[in-house]
C-alpha cells in the first residue's frame, strides 16, 4: 500500500468514513529509496492497462456515501470539449444510476488517478475505457454484495437507480448506499470486469447537457480555474527580451521601490539556476524581468516603465524568416527515418513509377500556427516553505507538479499539490512540458513569500509560446492506364525543436491512409530547431492531409474522374465509403470531371488506423465563393459527415465538429506566424487575425452512429479535412489550384493569375 493511495483514501473518506488502523508510511523513507524527481512522470495517455497499473485500487477511483451519492475521480481535465460530461454518462450507465448521482472529480493531483495528459484525442478512446472498467468492477462487486445480503443468486438480481432488487420481488432490495456506503471496496480494478452490454445503455447515446456550462454562464464559483483566488495574492507581470536569446544588461532599479511594488526580479534564461534545473522547460532563451505588485495595474505600469529603460544585448538567432522558411526546410532537413523498411518500399515505388502510364507530382506547404487561446497563459502559485499549491490550466497537472517541484528545489513532486480545472480552450498549448507559467509563478511566490498570480500578456502568449511546426510535403504518384494509383511517395520537411512534437509521427497520417495506392513510401526530414514547437491540435496530420486530399483531387481531374468517385475507387473500407456517401448526398454533390464553377470541394480522412483511440472517419464538403478581383475566399457552407463509432453524446459531437470546422477554416484562410531573424513578429490579434462572426460558414453535421463499434475520440480529427476541402472547392470554383497555406487573398490571387 503506497503512501499515495493512502492519501487518496483519507481524502475520499470525508465524513462518516470507516478507515481505521492504517499507519501512514513516512514519505521521506520512500524518497530515500528512489530519487523521485529524477524520473519524468509516467504519461499513460495512450495506455489503458498502464492507467490501471498505476492506480490499481478501486477505492482510488470511486466512493459511495451512505445516502448513495457517488464520487468518481478522473485524471482528465475539462478543456472545453465536454469530456467530463461524456465520462459521467459512461460511469452512470455502467453503474446503473442516474446521471445526477455522480460527482465527477478532476484536477487535484493529491487525489485523482494519473490517466495521462488530456491530449492526443485519448479521453474517449482510452481513458473512458479505463473508467468504464472501474465502474464495472464496482457494479459487479455491488451485485456480489447484494446477492449475499438478499440471499439470492446474482442471476436473479436487477439494478435500477442504484438499487439492487430480486427480479419479481421488489420487497427484497438493497441500495448501493446500504451495501457499501462510507466503506471501502478494498478491491483491485478488474481489467476483465464484465461490462454492461451496449443494448442496455440508456444515458450513453443521449445529448445530456454539459455539466459545466451553467456555472460558466452564471459566473459561479468554480466556473473557471482562471478565476481561482487566494487571500493575499500578489500580481505578477513580465517584461520579456526584445529578441530570442537576448541578455539583460541593465534596467531601472528604482522601479522596485515604487508604492505597491513588492519586487522587481531579473532572470537570466538560460542561467538562472531555478529555471535551469527544470527538466524539459520549453520557453525560448531570453532574459526577463518579473514584477510582483499588490495591484495588477501597478505591475503592468511597472513593466512598461522597465521596458522603456531596460538595455539588452540582442542579436539575430533565428536562422530564417517566415517568408523563407519553406525553402530553408527543404535545404536543411535531415532524414528522420519514418519507415523501418523504407528503402524496400521506396524501391517498390520506384519500380511502380517506372512502369506507370502517367506520373504526377505536387508540393504543398503549411506554416507555423499560433494556438491562440483566448486566455493568455497564467498561473497561481502559493509556496509555503516545503509545500506548494498551484492552480493551473495545465492539460497535465502531474507534469506541472513535477516541473514546479524541480523549480522550487523540492525532493519530491508530492510536496506540490496542483489543481487543474475547467479552463479556457487550449488546443494543446498546455500539453506535456508546456508548464512554464506554473514554473515561473512558483519561483516568484517562493521569492516573495506570498501567493502570486502570474498573468502573461497577449504579446507574450503570441511570441513566447510554442507553435505547430511548418511542413513542406511533396507527393508523387504513378497511375495506370485506367487512372488508378499504382504507387505513392511522400516526402515531408518540417522543423522541430527537440522532440516536441515527436518527429517520428511527422508522416503518421499519410502513412495511415486507407486508400489503396500500391507501395506507399514516406520519409520525413527535420531541419529544426527554428522556433519553439509543440503539440497543436492534430499535430502533423492536418498538413499531411491537406497535401494528400488536395493531391487526390489533382489526380482525379488529371484522369478526368469525379473527385468523389475517384476516392471511392481507392477504398475498400465500408465505413470510409459510407461516410463519403453521407456527406456528398447531404451536400447535393453532383458528379463532375472538371471544375464545375459551383465552388464545391470534398475531402476524406481516416484520422488514424482503425485500432487507435481517435480512429474516426470524416468526409467534408466545402462550398465557397471566390472574389476573383481580390482573391478573397468566403466559405459559405461545410457539410460534415463523421463516424466515430458508438456516439456517447450526439450534441457534444456536433458541437465539436462545428468548432473544429470554424477553427480549421480560420487556420486555412488566415493564419501564419510571422517572424524575422530576431523574434516572432505576429504579436496580437491585429497582426494575427482569426475568423470572425461575419466570416463563419454554415455547418451541417451528419453523424453516422455505429453502435457496434468502439467509441472513438474526435477532438483533433474534426479539424483535419477542412483545408483541403476548401482548396478543392476553390479549384472547382475557379480552376486555380492553391497549394500553400494559408489560402489568403494574396496566395489565391497569385494562383488565379497563374491559370
Amino acid at each position, binding site marked *: 500500500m503506497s503512501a499515495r493511495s493512502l492519501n487518496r483514501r483519507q481524502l475520499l473518506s470525508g465524513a462518516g468514513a470507516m478507515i481505521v488502523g492504517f499507519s501512514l508510511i513516512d514519505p521521506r523513507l520512500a524518497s530515500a529509496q528512489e530519487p523521485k524527481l529524477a524520473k519524468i512522470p509516467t504519461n499513460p495517455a495512450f495506455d489503458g492497462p498502464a492507467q490501471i497499473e498505476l492506480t490499481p485500487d478501486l477505492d482510488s477511483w470511486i466512493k459511495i456515501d451512505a445516502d448513495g451519492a457517488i464520487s468518481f475521480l478522473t485524471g482528465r481535465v475539462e478543456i472545453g470539449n465536454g469530456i467530463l460530461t461524456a465520462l459521467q454518462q459512461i460511469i452512470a450507465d455502467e453503474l446503473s444510476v442516474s446521471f445526477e448521482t455522480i460527482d465527477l472529480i478532476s484536477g487535484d493531483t493529491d487525489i485523482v488517478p494519473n490517466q495521462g495528459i488530456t491530449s492526443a484525442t485519448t479521453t474517449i478512446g482510452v481513458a473512458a475505457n479505463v473508467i468504464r472498467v472501474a465502474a464495472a468492477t464496482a457494479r459487479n462487486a455491488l451485485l456480489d454484495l447484494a446477492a449475499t445480503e438478499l440471499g439470492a443468486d446474482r442471476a436473479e438480481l436487477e439494478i435500477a437507480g442504484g438499487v439492487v432488487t430480486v427480479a419479481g420481488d421488489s420487497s427484497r432490495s438493497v441500495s448501493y448506499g446500504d451495501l457499501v456506503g462510507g466503506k471501502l471496496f478494498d478491491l483491485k480494478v478488474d481489467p476483465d470486469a464484465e461490462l454492461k452490454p451496449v443494448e442496455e445503455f440508456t444515458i450513453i447515446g443521449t445529448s445530456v447537457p454539459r455539466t459545466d456550462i451553467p456555472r460558466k*454562464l452564471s459566473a459561479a464559483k468554480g466556473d*473557471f480555474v482562471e478565476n481561482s483566488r487566494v487571500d493575499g495574492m500578489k500580481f505578477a507581470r513580465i517584461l520579456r527580451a526584445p529578441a530570442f536569446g537576448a541578455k539583460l544588461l541593465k534596467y531601472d532599479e528604482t522601479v522596485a521601490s515604487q508604492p505597491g511594488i513588492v519586487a522587481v526580479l531579473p532572470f537570466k534564461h538560460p542561467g538562472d539556476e531555478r529555471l535551469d534545473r527544470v527538466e524539459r522547460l520549453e520557453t525560448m532563451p531570453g532574459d526577463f524581468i518579473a514584477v510582483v505588485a499588490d495591484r495588477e495595474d501597478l505591475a503592468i505600469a511597472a513593466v512598461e516603465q522597465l521596458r522603456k529603460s531596460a538595455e539588452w544585448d540582442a542579436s539575430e538567432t533565428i536562422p530564417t524568416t517566415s517568408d523563407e522558411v519553406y525553402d530553408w526546410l527543404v535545404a536543411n532537413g535531415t532524414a528522420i527515418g519514418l519507415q523501418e523498411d523504407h528503402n524496400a518500399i521506396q524501391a517498390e515505388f520506384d519500380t511502380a513509377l517506372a512502369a506507370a502510364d502517367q506520373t504526377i507530382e505536387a508540393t504543398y506547404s503549411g506554416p507555423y500556427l499560433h494556438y491562440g487561446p483566448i486566455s493568455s497563459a497564467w498561473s497561481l502559485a502559493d509556496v509555503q516553505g516545503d509545500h506548494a499549491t498551484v492552480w493551473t490550466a495545465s492539460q497535465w497537472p502531474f507534469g506541472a507538479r513535477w516541473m514546479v517541484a524541480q523549480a522550487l528545489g523540492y525532493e519530491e513532486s508530492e510536496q506540490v499539490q496542483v489543481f487543474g480545472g475547467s479552463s479556457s480552450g487550449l488546443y494543446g498549448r498546455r500539453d506535456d512540458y508546456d508548464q512554464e507559467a506554473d514554473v515561473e509563478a512558483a519561483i516568484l511566490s517562493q521569492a516573495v513569500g506570498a501567493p502570486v498570480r502570474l498573468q502573461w500578456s497577449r504579446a507574450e502568449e503570441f511570441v513566447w509560446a510554442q507553435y505547430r511546426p511548418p511542413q513542406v510535403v511533396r507527393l508523387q504518384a504513378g497511375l495506370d492506364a485506367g487512372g488508378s494509383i499504382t504507387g505513392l511517395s511522400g516526402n515531408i520537411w518540417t522543423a522541430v525543436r527537440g522532440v516536441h512534437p515527436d518527429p517520428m509521427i511527422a508522416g503518421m497520417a499519410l502513412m495511415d491512409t486507407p486508400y489503396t495506392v500500391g507501395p506507399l513510401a514516406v520519409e520525413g526530414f527535420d531541419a529544426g530547431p527554428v522556433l519553439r514547437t509543440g503539440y497543436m491540435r492534430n499535430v502533423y496530420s492536418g498538413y499531411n492531409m491537406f497535401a494528400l486530399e488536395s493531391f487526390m483531387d489533382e489526380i482525379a481531374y488529371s484522369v478526368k474522374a469525379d473527385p468523389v468517385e475517384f476516392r471511392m475507387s481507392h477504398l475498400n473500407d465500408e465505413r470510409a465509403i459510407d461516410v463519403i456517401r453521407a456527406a456528398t448526398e447531404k451536400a447535393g454533390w453532383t458528379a463532375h470531371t472538371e471544375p464545375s464553377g459551383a465552388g464545391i470541394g470534398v475531402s476524406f480522412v481516416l484520422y488514424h488506423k482503425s485500432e487507435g483511440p481517435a480512429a474516426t472517419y470524416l468526409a467534408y464538403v466545402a462550398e465557397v465563393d471566390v472574389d476573383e478581383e481580390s482573391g478573397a475566399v468566403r466559405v459559405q457552407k461545410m457539410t460534415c459527415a463523421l463516424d466515430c463509432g458508438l456516439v456517447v453524446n450526439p450534441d457534444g459531437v456536433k458541437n465539436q465538429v462545428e468548432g473544429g470546422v470554424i477553427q480549421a477554416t480560420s487556420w486555412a484562410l488566415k493564419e501564419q506566424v510571422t517572424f524575422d531573424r530576431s523574434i516572432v513578429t505576429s504579436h496580437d490579434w491585429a497582426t494575427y487575425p482569426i475568423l470572425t462572426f461575419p466570416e463563419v460558414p454554415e455547418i451541417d453535421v451528419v453523424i453516422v452512429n455505429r453502435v457496434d463499434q468502439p467509441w472513438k475520440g474526435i477532438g483533433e480529427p474534426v479539424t483535419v479535412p477542412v483545408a483541403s476541402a476548401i482548396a478543392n472547392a476553390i479549384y472547382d470554383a475557379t480552376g486555380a489550384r492553391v497549394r500553400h497555406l494559408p489560402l489568403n487573398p494574396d496566395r489565391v490571387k497569385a494562383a488565379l493569375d497563374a491559370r
Partner: protein
Amino acid sequence: MAEIVIKVNGVSQTVDAAPESQLLYILRNQLHLNGPKFGCGLTQCGACTVLIDGQPVRSCLAPVSIVEDKDVVTLDGLNVDGKPGPVQQAFIDEQAAQCGYCINGMVMMATSLLAKNPNPTDDDIRTHLAANLCRCGTHTRIIKAIKRAAAEGAAQ
C-alpha cells in the same frame, strides 16, 4: 493607496485604485467577480466586456474614472436570485459554449443588442459581434442563443 467609490451590479463599493487604473483588474481582483475575463488586455477580443450605463465597454483598458456616477453591470450581475438570467439561460439551452471563456463578452454584447434591437437578424448579430473573438468556434450556437433569447423575450 487611493480610494474610489464605484457602483457595480447595483452595489456601491469602495476600491483601491488610481483614476487611471484599468477597470478589469478592480472588478476581478478586488470585487472578486468571475464574469469579465482577461484575454488580451488590448481591447481586441472582448472577453473583458462589461456594461456601463447599458453600453458595452472593454474593461481591460477602461480607466476606472469613467465609471464615476455610472452603473457598471457584469455577467455576475445578470443573474436573477442567484440563477442565470434570460440571456444566459438561452445560451445554456442552446449549449452555446465550448470552453466558454469568450462567452462573457458574447452575453454582455447580446444584452446590449437586445435592449435596442429586440428582434435582430443573423446579420445584425454577426455585425454586432464582429469584434468579439471566439477561438473554439462556437459562433453558430452563439447566434442561435441570441435568436432564442430574442424570441423568448418577445414571447413575454
